[in-house]
């Protein structure tokens, strides 16, 4: 069984993330403890909140260093993807974790926040999004309506959509994260 540490930095939908991971067979710990994050088979940085307050909370718990030091896989979800970039334009500019090259920029097309289900190419599934910022990164590996939907660098995998809230498609995605080919 895969041991998963879900980083709890104060305002994420951590319970939703834990429920979805448990459903696909993970042994989940929701934690603020940097050592638990460092030792997990998979670390998950979930994503609800604003960039500045989330970064402050990550730093004060030492989770930023634990994530940078990890050699095993880390999954960043939504804001978790944006925080992994070098910087974000949110809240007047925030320095990120630097696990992925690039920066988070505010969306300008259509209604913002961009909320709802949208196809992701080339994953060939439909996932749920809820975001006002999106990654601008050379490490993108999938897209949705012109937004970066997934990005990868080393052992870090970030998704802009919410696999924990994306029904059967999301469950399939999380299963792949737990048992990478």
């Amino acid at each position, binding site marked *: 069984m895969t041991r998963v540490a879900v980083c709890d930095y104060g305002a994420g939908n*951590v319970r939703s993330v834990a429920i979805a991971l448990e459903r696909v067979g993970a042994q989940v710990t929701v934690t603020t403890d940097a050592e638990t994050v460092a030792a997990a088979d998979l670390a998950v940085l979930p994503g609800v909140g604003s960039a500045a307050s989330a970064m402050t909370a990550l730093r004060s718990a030492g989770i930023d260093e634990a994530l940078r030091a990890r050699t095993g896989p880390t999954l960043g979800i939504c804001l978790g993807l944006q925080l992994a970039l070098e910087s974000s334009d949110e809240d007047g500019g925030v320095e990120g974790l630097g696990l992925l090259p690039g920066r988070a920029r505010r969306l300008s097309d259509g*209604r913002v926040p961009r909320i709802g289900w949208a196809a992701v190419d080339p994953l060939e599934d439909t996932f*749920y999004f809820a975001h006002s910022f999106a990654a601008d990164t050379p490490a993108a590996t999938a897209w949705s*309506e012109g937004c970066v939907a997934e990005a990868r660098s080393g052992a870090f995998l970030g998704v802009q959509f919410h696999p924990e809230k994306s029904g059967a498609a999301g469950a399939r995605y999380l299963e792949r994260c737990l048992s990478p080919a």
Partner: protein
Amino acid sequence: MPLPRLIPCLDVAGGRVVKGIRFQGLRDAGDPVELGARYSDAGADELVFLDVKATLEERANRIELVERVAERLAIPFTVGGGVRSAADAEALLRAGADKVAVNSAALERPALIGELAERVGSQAVVLAVDATGGRVHARAGTTDAGRDAAEWAAEGEALGAGEILLTSIDADGTRAGYDLALTARVAAAVSVPVIASGGAGGAGHVAQALEVAQAALLASILHEDPDRLASLRGELRAAGVLLRDAA
């Protein structure tokens, strides 16, 4: 633009789903945990849970019930009713909610919207607006808040709300169709997504609502026959409305 959404709504009082007409004459409509799971499995795009008595009776939100509903869902979950502080919102997210809806408390103290947005992010803050005759009503529709619905929605967006859940009290439970004029007026006043609520009687009404709003809330029409969600999705697809494939 993301796909249009169909959102079943559980109005909850005393631990049970209830439904009335124009917010009056509430009748029992089932168990929230069972109905939530059925809708999630049947292809609902999101689920909304509103504790309709929380504000009136000053009750703390029903955390334990929210936990039990969330346990069974694989779709986004919005919870509202009695949210008065960022700490209330955080407690709901910890119980398994993904977004919080705020209504009366924001009318009394609009700065609450910004406090919620700072703590949980705008994309997780839904401003619920209940309107009759285009005017906002607070406290489960019982009190005229002295505001125009579109102006209040725009103010809410400026303060940090990421979505507007617009309920027409006039249309609520009537199955005579959504209040399209009101919905269009509010949608034109904001740039965040708008969820139309109140009045769904059939697929035609929902299709009309989805032309002016980004999502349609469904309650009475589903609770009496939860299998209706799947057939409704089929009818809408046949009518050319693009909905997600939930398989």
